[in-house]
């Protein structure tokens, strides 16, 4: 079903919204490839390939170039790339109505920095696809994530990321620029500082969104739940994970330890807890995406738990009630202020499972084996990183 893409954008926000609406099976004619390829592109604000442009746009608050599609500067070129590759896909040929090059449709373009294929999209209507003239007023997507809100959060969090935690990545190139992947990390700190650091880092460096999957407990807290959702948080439900990873080919971040990770006391630092029931492995198998383990060092010391008040936690209905070193030193302020630790994140090799995707059930023993293996790899990587670390504060 062809999408009418000729009408001009109504507002300055229209391009990104229009692009967002294009969430479809798109058949693109790729000049690099001889045959038409069928790929799935997610919404542009979430689309892996589209994300660099869209994020760049939104970070400048809609940007003056929104109305001038042809005169867009290749903003990607001067973006901070850190230890990563540059994502130089020129965008001068794109008009706002055109959807971004789809993730799988431009493999030749990836890395070659050559002319972006002028895709001729033939959008197939998907059930959840929103018509182009949808009278939406906000950019909140189906997960509750708002790119606008996300860009505000990024702007606020950036100094924290750069100057407080001085986050350093290792092996970031192992995270794919397109296609779904399940990021799996260790989890620590009374109010975990690892999730925002990982999400911020990947969005800044790779320019693609990360959906942080967390306990649904978050949703029950007024304001916090809403903010968390707008900033890219998604309740950890197998259906949500499958849809994000398989249908939308996004990056999803999970912490298999669950609340057992952040709730552990300082005495247990860097000792990985049980990896749930291996559900994350099963989801990755079903979605047909790789698992990419991330070893995070530093978050553990940013807000260490000295002891827990289990009785109080039960009374007020929270998973755990920590007494942190921060709150002992700083009083109530300690619930907000992290210690200025150095955070280092190492990306391990992606793990591909050689199984058929889309099955309802997978061998439990296989799942547990893989989960144990990933846990072992992460634990080894943590020990390795700690061996190299000379200072908690300076890395």
């Amino acid at each position, binding site marked *: 079903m062809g999408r009418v893409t000729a009408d001009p954008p109504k507002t300055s926000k229209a391009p990104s919204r229009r692009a967002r609406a294009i969430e479809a099976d798109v058949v693109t004619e790729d000049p690099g490839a001889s045959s038409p390829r069928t790929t799935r592109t997610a919404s542009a604000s979430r689309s892996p390939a589209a994300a660099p442009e869209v994020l760049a746009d939104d970070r400048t608050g809609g940007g003056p170039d929104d109305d001038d599609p042809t005169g867009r500067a290749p903003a990607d070129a001067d973006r901070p790339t850190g230890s990563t590759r540059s994502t130089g896909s020129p965008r001068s040929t794109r008009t706002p109505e055109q959807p971004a090059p789809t993730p799988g449709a431009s493999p030749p373009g990836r890395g070659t920095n050559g002319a972006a294929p002028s895709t001729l999209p033939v959008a197939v*209507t998907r*059930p*959840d*696809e*929103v*018509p182009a003239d*949808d*009278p*939406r*007023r*906000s950019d*909140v997507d*189906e*997960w*509750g994530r708002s790119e606008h809100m996300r860009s505000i959060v990024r702007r606020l969090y950036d100094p924290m990321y750069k100057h407080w935690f001085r986050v350093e990545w290792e092996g970031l190139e192992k995270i794919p620029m397109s296609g779904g992947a399940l990021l799996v990390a260790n989890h620590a700190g009374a109010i975990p500082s690892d999730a925002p650091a990982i999400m911020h880092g990947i969005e800044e460096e790779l320019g693609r969104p990360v959906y942080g999957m967390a306990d*649904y*407990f978050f*949703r*029950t*807290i*007024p*304001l*916090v*739940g*809403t903010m968390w959702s707008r900033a890219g948080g*998604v*309740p950890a*439900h*197998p*259906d*949500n994970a499958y*849809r994000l990873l398989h249908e939308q080919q996004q990056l999803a971040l999970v912490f298999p330890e669950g609340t057992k990770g952040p709730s552990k006391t300082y005495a247990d630092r860097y000792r990985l807890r049980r990896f749930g029931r291996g559900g994350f492995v099963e989801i990755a198998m079903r979605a047909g995406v790789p698992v990419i383990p991330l070893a995070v060092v530093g978050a553990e010391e940013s807000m260490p738990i000295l002891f827990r008040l289990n009785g109080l936690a039960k009374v007020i209905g929270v998973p755990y009630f920590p007494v942190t070193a921060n709150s002992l030193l700083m009083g109530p302020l300690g619930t907000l202020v992290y210690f200025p630790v150095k955070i280092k994140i190492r990306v391990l090799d992606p793990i591909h499972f050689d199984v058929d995707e889309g099955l309802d059930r997978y061998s439990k023993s296989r799942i547990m084996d893989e989960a144990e293996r990933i846990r072992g790899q992460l634990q080894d990587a943590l020990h390795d990183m700690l061996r190299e670390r000379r200072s908690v504060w300076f890395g």
Partner: protein
Amino acid sequence: MGRRVLITGLDTFWGGRMAQALENDPGVEMIMGMGTREPKVPLERTEFVRADQTYSILNRIVRATQVDTIVHTFLETNSVQVSSRLLHEINVIGTLNLLAAAGAPGTPVRQVVVKSSTHIYGSSEKDPAWFREGTRRNASVRTQLERSLIEVEALVRDFADDNPHVVVTVLRFANVLGSDIVTPISFDLRRRLLPCIAGYDPLVQFVEEDDVVRSLEHVTRLRIPGIFNVAGAGKLPWSEVASIGGAHLLPLPPFNTRAFARPLTRVGLIQFPAEIDSLVRYGRGVDTTRLIESGFTYRYSSAGAVESFARANNLRRAVGAHEPGYRYEQDVEQFFRHSPAVVRGIDG
């Protein structure tokens, strides 16, 4: 031979509009509707019987009219309008009687279409972003409405098991918005005061009333069996519903919400039934892939339904509530339908 259709709840928005839609279908030979009140829409050839849904009456009607299709729209999904006892009587007992009559030995019934609601999924923090038709409900059942819907669908499931020769269709509608239908949310939007719970801004879905009627017609005409979610594409935050609908948000405290809302609902400032309470906390999304794959196309997205309602509302505000251009007069209708004096088939 054309189809012979029985519609329950002809006096409601759902039944009346459905009857109108079927009247235009030449494949439908006879339409007859039941209702406790007189129909509110002009109907050309639909026969109306004022009757409640007691078993003996239903049984006689089904036998006497030899209907092959039953469209069961008389299910109350607005707990503001009726007491919880009446809700149970209408939904559960009414459906029970209807299905008993439809399943009696020797009846010619070959399709039963039941209107349900996505309230059946509930709304809780543990929910997935999208409910498919088979997704399990997480929320505990707290409201009478949800309890009755679950009971109704269990009855329908049993009926489908016992009568494999009957095409059984269940449509689960998201919150409906439109110029004709009155729901708690449309009431609040008309008042331009939309209750919300402070600190929560969940994602919700809507379906436009035209799409409601068209989807009912779609599954009836094509005899499509199964359970289907019906909702406009996309989801939108509750705050955006207020902004598109031109309403102000009225924040209620997140704790003891119902106690705070009670005086406001009592004086008629807002409508805030229990099933909306959890909805405006955690929202709900239903996956409509199955209905779309059956060949149905929506005219309105979720946001489009809100906008369409807002426009109708603007018009209403400018020119006043539109006059009911039609009043059902039993004698007049009887005359036009049955008197030999009326020459039929001239102008349809």
